[in-house]
């Protein structure tokens, strides 16, 4: 199995380009996807190990974080180099812009960076850089290697569910304009690509991962999978935001 949860006690291995995931912290719901971005393999990775990662935070960039799950296939050295190059070319000025916003006591606009549907949008004259969701960032890194991890149809999600999957954007998602700019403007259900799906894609043999994409099922937003998906749970299951 090439996807697994990290634990506090049993160290596991991570290599350049592996997909890392953060859980919601109170359940097995996976809410953030990243790429492991260290040159040397680590064999000491537990749920408390600080790791160098690259991700679409937002902003797009590098950081040091712990990981709750790892998905991987055996990448060749060449493929690792290509992932490193992909990370190096994904530059934008969002971090500096964020500081400018802060200086001017303005709120940063998440629409500048982040898209939810589709999970990656190519550059345009208005936004002269790739925009991703955190999942889109990982998907693009692997699709550049000709490894397509996911394929639709994807389970459709309501706005309330999306707020659970994107806890950092929960407030912004209440704004119709922001939602629209992120690709979830019209309709009531959206087929978004979620972090848990990536882990389930990796949780196949390497041959299967390379041979073809994974089509997710309801409940795959959790890792390990749960028989019922987020929408069917009472709200109180999902942490402080729901309890108030």
């Amino acid at each position, binding site marked *: 199995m090439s996807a697994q949860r990290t634990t506090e006690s049993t160290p596991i291995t991570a290599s350049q380009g592996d997909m890392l995931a953060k859980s919601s912290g109170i359940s097995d719901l996976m809410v953030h996807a990243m790429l492991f971005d260290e040159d040397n393999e680590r064999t000491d990775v537990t749920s408390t190990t600080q790791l160098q990662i690259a991700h679409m935070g937002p902003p797009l960039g590098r950081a040091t974080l712990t990981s709750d799950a790892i998905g991987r296939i055996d990448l060749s050295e*060449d*493929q690792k*180099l*290509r992932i490193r*190059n992909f990370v*190096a*070319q994904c*530059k*934008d*000025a969002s*971090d*500096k*812009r964020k500081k*400018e*916003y802060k*200086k*001017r*006591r*303005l709120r940063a*606009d998440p629409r*500048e960076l982040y898209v939810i549907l589709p999970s990656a949008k*190519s*550059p*345009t*004259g*208005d*936004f*002269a*850089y790739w925009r991703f969701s955190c999942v889109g960032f990982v998907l693009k890194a692997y699709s*550049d*290697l*000709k490894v397509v991890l996911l394929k639709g149809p994807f389970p459709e999600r309501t706005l309330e569910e999306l707020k659970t999957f994107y806890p950092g954007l929960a407030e912004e998602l209440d704004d119709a304009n922001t939602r629209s700019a992120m690709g979830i403007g019209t309709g009531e259900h959206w087929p978004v690509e979620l972090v848990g799906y990536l882990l389930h894609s990796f949780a196949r043999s390497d041959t299967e991962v390379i041979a073809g994409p994974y089509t997710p099922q309801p409940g795959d937003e959790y890792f390990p999978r749960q028989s019922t998906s987020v929408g069917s749970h009472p709200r109180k299951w999902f942490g402080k935001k729901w309890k108030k």
Partner: protein
Amino acid sequence: MSKALARQSSKVRAVGYVYKVPKPIRFYGGGRSCVPALEDEYRKEEYTEIDLSAVYRYGIFPQIRSTALSLKSTCVEPSVAREFWACETSAIQLRNFTNLSITHPAGGHRLWEIGSVKKSWENLFGQHSVDYFGAWLNDFVGEANANATAMALLFSPKSRCRGRFALQEWALSSLPRVLQVEPKADWVHEPEGILHRLENRDAYPDDIEAAVLFAEVKPFRGEQRTRLLKALGKYIDQHRFVEDQDSLVTLCSAIRKYAMNMLESHFEGYANWLLPTETATLHHEAEMEFAKGICWRLEFEPHSWPAEYPLLTKTLFDLVDSYLTPRLILQKSYANTAMFGMVALHVLEAASTTSKALVAKLRKRMMDCGVKWFAEMVDDNVDEAIQYISERDDVLAREVTKIRQG
């Protein structure tokens, strides 16, 4: 201001609060008394209403206190004054000043010493505020120099307590004009506000940088786009050889925005920016951004063809050719630079009617280079470009495919 009003004011949050000060004062902060001698004069004045929320629209000075003084009746230490007058630009960098004392001649009372507050100012509000303040001072001094009566409002960090804004301000009589300060924070969201900073040669450097950064995430149409391209072109021209990481971020932002919006008639001029001079060469990150910019422009935005861009083609060819050695390709950003250059050359050659088979030469060299993963990366990215181009121009996509297949 009466003491009663002052007492009342001190308990009120400053945001949106309107109170009275002498004559047409447009902007200032409140603060505890630091110039007691001026208090009486202040009280004699007629009051004009002002809106303190302007302070907050700036978003720069969350906690401030002010001292108002007339430069006409104020002494500036000669050594400092010399630096002031010697400065040709209005964008004075306060950090360049080691010490500035302004004293009230009546009592020889030292009103302010900038050197002593600079550090804490920086710590609290960042360099931007310090620089901004410096620009203001320059304006004040300019007023004084023109023999006009001016009023300076000097700000310094107050206490760290939040939400309170002690209001007891000081002003002199006979103050016909004070700085007119326009709200600063909102312009970053407006294309016109961004253009105003980019086009204004007296704009403060921090504001120009911010304008470049925010231009990248705003749409510019029609005449505004023309103005943006001109301004960004000028910025790139002036900054393309920067080396420090902070400036590179802004430069790369300008390059991306320019490349994705430029007209086809700009392509050849764009190529000039990729060329080194006799004494300077591009930072490898800026070089990658230039290559990426033209690559993305050709891949994601429509362009007419057939068309010939001999300088751009030659420049990209030379660029890629120079990095296609195992010794270089693994260093810095050279692999990405060469890859973007290769993809761009595929499209340029496909769009040209006078093909010189440059891509074929480079592909042969790429294979001879023996770095397999790089060749795969180029092919995969060319395939991706073909896919995107085919969505808008199937014929061109087929031409690129032919070039790709040799």
